């Protein structure tokens, strides 16, 4: 039975079909769940429905979504990048150090941070391809060294502040609601979308992630593509780090290290799988939104830290259950 057969029949059937398609799209479900949790937050605490809330929701979502972009690409390509947090922190330190409360240095910072991200990404990719050990372990090792270097180079106490105009370009509120970071998103999101969905490179990433051997024999330069995903991931993390410096105004060593895991959770909740070859950036954005709303809800509930931790863990398990159950052996 194909689509055409059902199309003419009762509208109820259409609904069923739509429902089926909806449940098959992790991004759609993640958005729906976000809306649900958002509504729940508001119901529990009606005062929470204010400009601040909406604004910072958008701000945090965008920041998380940008820092998860690289991870999305790497995971689709069949890898895993644990160095996102360390690269972000390094970029943030570099940004506040270089800007040192002065404006007009954005381009210089951008170029140098992206270069740094690319170098770390290249090391990741190169070692993953050459050492041939699981990406998780290799990138973790590289990430540790990036963290240690931050320390060695700043003596543990990085100096300087991000430039005021730059800070403003991240956190300014349009109409008191929309944070100006959306301007960055307006450039960044389409680039990622194009890269993954509308470029030959993106398609190659999907093929490599799905079946490396087949991709190789089909003429894809597999190692090149794998290394490129890590390089791009490093650059995107570095970019996220720059924005992070704007968000935080100043940086510390390892300030964004938690993003290594939070971004991974956002990506996975957004429907990208560990096995590679499957996933979309739209899903990741939805996952980032969901994680942000969830964190807000937990704060709204005002539970003690222990309960908050337990609930947080349980909810991650629940979210994983929605999409990330691997197939049963018996069908």
């Amino acid at each position, binding site marked *: 039975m194909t689509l055409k057969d059902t199309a003419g029949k009762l509208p109820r059937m259409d609904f069923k079909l739509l429902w089926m398609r909806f449940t098959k799209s992790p991004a759609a479900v993640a958005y729906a769940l976000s809306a649900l949790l958002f509504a729940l937050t508001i119901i529990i605490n009606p005062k929470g429905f204010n400009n601040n809330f909406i604004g910072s929701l958008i701000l945090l979502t965008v920041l998380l979504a940008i820092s998860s972009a690289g991870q999305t690409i790497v995971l689709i390509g069949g890898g895993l990048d644990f160095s996102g947090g360390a690269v972000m922190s390094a970029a943030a330190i570099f940004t506040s150090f270089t800007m040192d409360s002065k404006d007009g240095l954005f381009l210089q910072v951008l170029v140098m941070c992206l270069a740094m991200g690319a170098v770390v990404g290249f090391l990741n990719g190169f070692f993953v391809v050459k050492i041939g050990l699981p990406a998780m372990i290799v990138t973790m090792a590289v990430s540790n060294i990036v963290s240690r270097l931050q320390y060695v180079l700043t003596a543990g106490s990085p100096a300087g502040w991000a430039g005021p105009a730059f800070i403003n370009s991240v956190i300014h509120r349009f109409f008191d609601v929309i944070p100006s970071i959306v301007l960055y998103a307006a450039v960044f999101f389409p680039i990622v979308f194009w890269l993954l969905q509308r470029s030959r490179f993106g398609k190659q990433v*999907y093929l490599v992630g799905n079946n490396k051997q087949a991709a190789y024999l089909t003429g894809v330069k597999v190692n090149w593509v794998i290394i490129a995903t890590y390089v791009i991931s490093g650059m995107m993390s570095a970019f996220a780090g720059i924005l992070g410096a704007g968000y935080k105004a100043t940086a510390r060593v390892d300030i964004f290290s938690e993003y290594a895991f939070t971004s991974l959770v956002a990506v996975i909740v957004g429907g990208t799988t560990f096995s590679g070859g499957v996933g979309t950036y739209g899903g990741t954005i939805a996952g980032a939104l969901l994680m942000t709303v969830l964190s807000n809800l937990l704060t709204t509930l005002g539970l003690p830290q222990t309960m908050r931790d337990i609930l947080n863990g349980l909810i991650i398990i629940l979210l994983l259950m929605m999409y990330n159950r691997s197939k049963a052996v018996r069908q």
Partner: protein
Amino acid sequence: MIQLLDISKTYGAVQALKQAHMTVAPGRITALLGSNGSGKSTLIKILAGLVSPNTGQVLLDGQEVFIRSGNDAKALGIATAFQDLSLVPMMTVEENLLLGDEPTRLAGMLDQGSIRQTVASLLERFSLKCQPQDFVQTLPPSTQYMLEIAKAVHRRPRVLLLDEATAALHQDEIDVLFKILRQLRNEGVAIVFVTHRMHEVFELCDEAVILRSGETVKSGPVSDFSLDDLVYYMTGQRMQEAAAYEGLTHKAGQAPLLTARAISLPPRVKDITLEAYAGEIVGIGGLEGQGQSDFMRALLGASQIFSGQIHFDVAKAQFKQPADAIKAGIGFISGERNREAMFADRTIAENIFAGNTAKGRRFTFLKKSAVNRFANQAVDTYQIKVGRIQDAASTLSGGNQQKLVIARWIAMQPKLLLLDDPTKGVDIHSRLEIHQILRQCADDGMAVIISASDTDELMDIADRIYVFYEGMVSGMLEGENKTHEHLVACMMGVCHIQPERQEGGA
């Protein structure tokens, strides 16, 4: 003894079985036939406990039974050799053969002595030359399939299910297997035998059950059917005689598109010289493992030759990786489609477009509609049966998956197309279609090099056949030399046939 009644099974939107039924009697070998995607494997897996049917009953000795796991099947005396194997590649031969069935002694510790003995006798019975301590993944496919069967037979089943067990076997192995199967039949074992090779049906089987699109269309004693009948029930069409092809296609004086001279690539390829002209189909024959695959991969640049020269399209060609070869206009289709060709989680459209994806500038804008148009065109041209082109490629049956892979390359219009045993496990009907497609390509000026494990197929499709034996060309069959007898003789290495035209032969 075993009866399946009204079995239905759907995978998402695909209906694999529609109220299929089958009866298997003890002491009989039942052929389970059907074209690709007709649901044979699904039926087997239901009996093996790997697939749960949506509706229907399984009766064993008249009693309804529920097979929910491999363990249930084992308890009921059902053993299976799967089409896609059930060995654990990182474990040894010994461990695999006895997996789930290990003999123990005191306090549940493994009984090493009895393990060693059992395995040795099993290996001998199946004339297997591998060592008990070899890791399975290091063994050639045919040995792995024999192990799979040996493992099933070792269980001393009442019901033995063999899903395309012979697809990857050599003739000598098939002989061993048939001997054992006949023996088991005499012992009263009920055997279900799935195959696409019709002569095996007549040679070995007593009963036949024929599936078409998941329905049982016909069953009865094999003696009631002719070959034509079988094909008719499987496909719903009478077989058309493929017009036997004769004569050379390349004109004298035409320069060869590809020349491979004295290629060596240890350990399998020792000294191969071969030419291919635009517009012809060159066959590569030989027993499995005589260097065919390695040679093709060397042409593609997937492995580097040790010595020799390759000229492609006039220029000297020493490709470092497949990407370079493909850029130069070579296409490659592997018969190992799951491992080397399919992108199972990606859509049908993306799979068809894959060749195009790999080629060209990486950071340009790709229109979605362009991809879809390309895919739709291929689907129409090659009559691939798909639901929607946005469905995952894994929803297609084996034969259609293979057509998809072929479509992927042909749509790219390469100058030279390499096919490594592309019709393994593809049914007669689809196979003919694929042959027609290849012939069309050759007529349009493509050079096609195809290796096949099936001699009939080679005879049917190839203009010239190079026969490989132990890494060398034992014969080049052409014109009147191209006979079945010559082919088999060269395959066994007992005969050398070299055309005069070829100066630098082996």
